[in-house]
């Protein structure tokens, strides 16, 4: 809402406001504040239907009408359309107001069916509630009401009962104003007005579920919730959505130990009350019959149910055996992004402190190196979406992978004057809102970014981007008001992460004030990295080589050498160098970009131990399968892409004997003769905020305090910026100084960072330095957020925490003129278990097609939709081909993890880019 931004930006100072009298009490309203908001802020709730604080007012319903005197005598005015003016006198309870509101309600009820007993909204319905509080006691309407077909589907997820609709325009405004998908609209006029879609063109928006939540009557209902429960049967807990890393705050509602509904909770820095449909509706997977409810152990070709004791013993024996024969390096732990922070910490401690292996990776080769994710100056969503700011998106399609971040970015551009520059291998869902989209050839993103910031690159043609577009984008960057923010992720899993890392180096160098928002997608991947589930890392964003000694003291031991990442582990497994592979909710066959490698790894490794919610393609190959507790089933905390830690709520019990992953880690440690001493998520968190440098001071009390509804940004000195003045506060200046100082302090040990392959535990001298820094950090943390001066800031940020200092430019072999480069991206709905196990969402996965530019398509000389053969050095697939103008010439685009095609079997994870040839005549 345009007003919102100004209101938010205005500091809450009273003398900037205006005095208004509401029901006899004089209060201060902010300048330009709507009367309905001012009244609510001062405890007077004016009834309403159409007004929604996250959308523009329209004055459709007239329910909020109150008597207002602006000096010309009292008159009735809709308070949602009226800005407070000095000396306004408002009476929300006068006889005139009361009669007017009664009249509005009587008219609304004329056409309302009053079928409350069979209406999902009954019990939480603003129309019911406000009829009781502000309506006429009785109806005078005895005539026939209108009759329309009872609910009609307007999408696969949402049904519409037009009889109940009061035409408040909330759903339609949401669709066009917030989601940018105006697929529902008012049709007809007057008494015949109805909400509807174009015939046969459903309301297929990723955000359609929000309309169900904001509809003030039972006109819009969700297929998954219809007739399931009454509001008074439900109990609720607040939690954080675990379907992607945006971390939207949700209310989990359940009845009789079954989750029945997820609603969005409005937290200002993150989701503003909105959810995407995946986050809202994939809770059905929690209740799925296919959930693992008991451990399974392999007997020959079969997985047979077993008791926990037997399964854990078998897993522990396999791990002990591996330690005896091949040592710690023969064990790998893959995955962990689904886990809570506490689970991830327990697993890190088990893997690194007990097993002694550093082969841990929460990412599956489709992310970015941890020093890039954690070691760049980080931005919050609010900073990225700052009104009037400039943001560069180098990463995946936010609409597909981080949907509510897409909503925030869209709002920033459309409503708050932000400038968005997109660098992507093909047009994406955000391209419509980008001021400039620069499409790069796969593998040449850094070239485009170089051109964007005015550095000379290696390629003569700007990485495939249009020169005039690059020029425009450069001009926009030059004119940027305040520091630029960068949304950084992997645009395509068919090209190496090095190119994005290279691009990040360029941006960091050229835009020293830039802040970065990670666009890694998996729910708690940032928490898992914070907790040290990556090679060379330890909890608290520190490197093994810097902080190994401290952790060795606390844990008893740490790995002697830096281990392997996902690609390294799978390669080692495929080459027979791993004895045990632990899968922590990871499905490398589906998610690792190189399916052939994953296949070979899983086929070769002697023992696979999997902890999972479902028997996935990968966990079905395990030797021991341990059923884990998932979302809404366990307590703990999670960390979103900003580094914001929030509290997860438990609402139901896990199925059967499934249990939390931290328990599994602790049990396995115990069976191997180590007591981790971890007894509850709370106890684990206490240990985390004592040991992990970045998490010092983030106590359970702080997390659970009422001020922390939105979560706590870690580390603590990272202040929550006021959106409007991030670029002008002293805090940022101090930070700059601090960073300059850190630069010097860390100058010596930066180079090793990238070459972190086979380093031992860091040298003693460095240890001393790190420890000193740690102590300083502790002191600073004890004093709370640092205020005075750069020195403490240096200490509290700590030279030991991870920093990214750029990499040398990556070069790419010239393009083969006959082949196309593969672009492999994700869709919101795919083969993931959350989607597939939710009956409503599973059919929405779009399936597989190969998308080509018209030019490349026409060279093939085939019909749209005909099946072609796509071949890479790795393999070949048959897939229907279609024209997509958003794909640049020379590229071939596919979606990964879709039904009907394992697109990742084309990709070689070791190659810089994946080149494919597309051939017709597949029958021969």
């Amino acid at each position, binding site marked *: 809402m345009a*007003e919102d931004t100004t209101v938010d930006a205005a500091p809450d100072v009273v003398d900037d406001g205006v005095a208004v009298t509401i029901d006899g009490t004089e209060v201060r309203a902010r300048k330009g504040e709507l009367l309905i908001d001012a009244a609510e802020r001062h405890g007077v709730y004016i009834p309403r239907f159409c007004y929604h604080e996250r959308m523009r007012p329209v004055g459709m319903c007239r329910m909020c009408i109150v008597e207002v005197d602006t000096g010309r005598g009292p008159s009735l005015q809709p308070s949602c359309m009226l800005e407070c003016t000095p000396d306004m006198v408002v009476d929300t309870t006068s006889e005139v107001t009361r009669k007017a509101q009664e009249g509005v309600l009587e008219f609304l009820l004329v056409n309302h069916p009053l079928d409350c007993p069979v209406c999902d909204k009954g019990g939480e319905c603003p129309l019911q509630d406000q009829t009781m509080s502000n309506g006429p006691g009785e109806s005078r309407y005895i005539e026939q009401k209108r009759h329309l077909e009872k609910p009609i589907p307007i999408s696969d997820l949402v049904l519409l009962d037009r009889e109940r609709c009061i035409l408040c325009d909330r759903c339609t405004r949401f669709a066009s104003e917030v989601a940018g998908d105006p697929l529902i609209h008012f049709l007809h006029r007057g008494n015949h007005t109805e909400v509807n879609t174009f015939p046969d063109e459903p309301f297929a928006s990723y955000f359609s579920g929000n309309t169900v939540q904001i509809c003030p009557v039972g006109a819009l209902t969700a297929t998954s919730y219809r007739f399931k429960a009454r509001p008074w049967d439900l109990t609720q807990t607040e939690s954080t959505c675990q379907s992607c890393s945006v971390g939207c705050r949700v209310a989990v509602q359940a009845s009789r130990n079954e989750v029945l509904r997820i609603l969005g909770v409005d937290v200002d820095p993150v989701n503003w009350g909105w959810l995407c449909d995946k986050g809202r509706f994939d809770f059905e997977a929690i209740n799925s019959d296919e959930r693992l409810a008991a451990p399974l152990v392999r007997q020959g070709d079969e997985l047979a149910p077993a008791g926990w004791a037997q399964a854990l013993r078998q897993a522990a024996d396999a791990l002990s055996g591996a330690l005896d024969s091949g040592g710690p390096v023969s064990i790998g732990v893959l995955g962990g992004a689904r886990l809570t922070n506490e689970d991830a910490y327990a697993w890190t401690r088990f893997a690194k402190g007990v097993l002694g292996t550093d082969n841990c990776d929460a990412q599956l080769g489709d992310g970015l190196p941890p020093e890039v994710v954690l070691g760049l100056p980080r931005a919050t969503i609010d900073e990225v979406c700052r009104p009037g700011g400039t943001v560069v998106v180098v990463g995946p399609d936010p609409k597909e992978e981080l949907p509510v971040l897409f909503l925030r970015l869209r709002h920033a551009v459309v409503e708050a004057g932000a400038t968005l520059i997109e660098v992507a291998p093909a047009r994406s869902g955000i391209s419509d809102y980008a001021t400039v989209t620069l499409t790069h050839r796969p593998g040449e993103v850094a070239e485009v970014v170089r051109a964007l910031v005015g550095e000379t690159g290696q390629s003569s043609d700007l990485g495939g981007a249009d020169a005039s577009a690059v020029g425009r984008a450069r001009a926009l960057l030059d004119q940027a008001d305040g520091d630029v923010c960068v949304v950084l992720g992997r645009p395509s899993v068919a090209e190496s992460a090095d190119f994005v890392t290279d691009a990040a180096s360029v941006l960091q160098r050229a835009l020293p004030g830039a802040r970065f928002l990670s666009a890694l997608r998996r729910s708690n991947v940032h928490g898992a990295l914070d907790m040290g589930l990556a090679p060379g890392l330890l909890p608290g964003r520190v490197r093994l080589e810097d902080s190994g000694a401290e952790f060795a003291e606390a844990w008893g031991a740490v790995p002697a050498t830096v281990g392997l990442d996902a690609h390294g582990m799978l390669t080692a497994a495929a080459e027979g160098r791993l004895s045990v592979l632990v899968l922590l909710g990871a499905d490398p066959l589906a998610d690792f970009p190189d399916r052939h490698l994953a296949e070979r790894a899983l086929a070769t490794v002697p023992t696979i131990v999997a902890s999972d919610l479902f028997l996935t393609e990968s966990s079905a190959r395990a030797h021991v399968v341990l059923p884990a507790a998932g979302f809404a089933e366990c307590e703990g905390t999670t960390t979103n892409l900003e580094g914001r830690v929030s509290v997860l709520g438990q609402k139901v019990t896990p199925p059967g004997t499934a249990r939390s992953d931290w328990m599994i880690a602790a049990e396995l440690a115990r069976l191997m003769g180590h007591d981790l001493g971890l007894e509850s998520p709370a106890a684990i968190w206490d240990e985390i905020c004592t040991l992990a440098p970045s998490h010092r001071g983030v106590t359970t009390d702080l997390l659970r305090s009422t001020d922390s509804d939105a979560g706590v940004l870690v580390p603590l000195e990272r202040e929550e910026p006021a959106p409007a003045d991030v670029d002008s506060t002293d805090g940022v200046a101090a930070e700059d100084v601090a960073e300059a100082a850190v630069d010097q302090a860390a100058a010596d040990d930066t180079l090793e960072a990238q070459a972190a392959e086979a380093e031992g535990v860091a040298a003693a001298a460095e240890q001393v330095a790190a420890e000193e820094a740690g102590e300083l950090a502790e002191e600073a943390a004890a004093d709370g957020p640092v205020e005075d001066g750069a020195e403490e800031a240096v200490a509290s940020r700590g030279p030991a925490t991870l920093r990214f200092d750029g990499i040398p430019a990556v070069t790419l072999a010239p393009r083969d003129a006959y082949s196309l480069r593969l672009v492999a991206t994700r869709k919101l709905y795919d083969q993931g278990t959350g989607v597939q196990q939710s009956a409503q969402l599973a059919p929405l996965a779009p399936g597989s097609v190969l998308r080509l530019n018209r030019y490349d398509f026409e060279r093939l000389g085939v019909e749209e939709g005909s099946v072609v053969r796509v071949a890479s050095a790795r393999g070949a697939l048959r897939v229907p081909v279609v024209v997509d103008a958003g794909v640049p010439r020379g590229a071939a685009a596919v979606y990964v993890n879709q039904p009907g095609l394992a697109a990742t079997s084309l990709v070689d994870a070791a190659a810089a880019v994946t080149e494919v040839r597309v051939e017709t005549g597949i029958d021969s």
Partner: protein
Amino acid sequence: MARFTPENETVAREILSRYPVPKSALVPLLHLAQEQDGHVTRDAMVHIAELVGVTPAEVIGTCTFYEMFKMEPVGRYLVNVCTNISCMLMGSDALLHHAEERLGISAGDTTPDGMFTLEGVECIAACTEAPCLQVNYRYRTNVTNESFDSLVNELAAGELEDEIPPHGTLARIRQHIPADRAAGVAPPDVNRVPVWMQTAVADTESPAGSEAN
């Protein structure tokens, strides 16, 4: 079901060029579609959506708001008999009844030969000459049963082709805007926040004691 013909697509693009904000062209484009097919087809709405850059739902929302846009086929001649108060007082009920009998259909229907659609409508603003009707929005006033019959005969015989074009054609003269006088694209901040919402700095308003009106 028809999209715009190539000729009409050219006309449509010219119409679009007149408006700085493409959405403003919705109504003229709907008229163009109705002129082409006699009613607004679904495919035409999809085509308009593509040309204007909106969704088909937004087009149908606009289209259904106006009674003059027909989403189902109507006869070559759409006969609208006014039934509002002045005309009613002057005998429009009887006239409509007569029209139904003469055409052999009830109000709201179309003759099987596709020549006539009959409708009773609200006031068409010719009350001084009541009762009155429109044929494809061309007026006939002080209508009697006899004058109605002869009107129908003349229409059926094609004698009024010059005066009354088939349903959908508003005018036979089309305004032509040369390319160099096109409006051009609006700057991006047009059509964001409606003007009426941008007003209102409180303290400039309503000096106390301003006289009421």
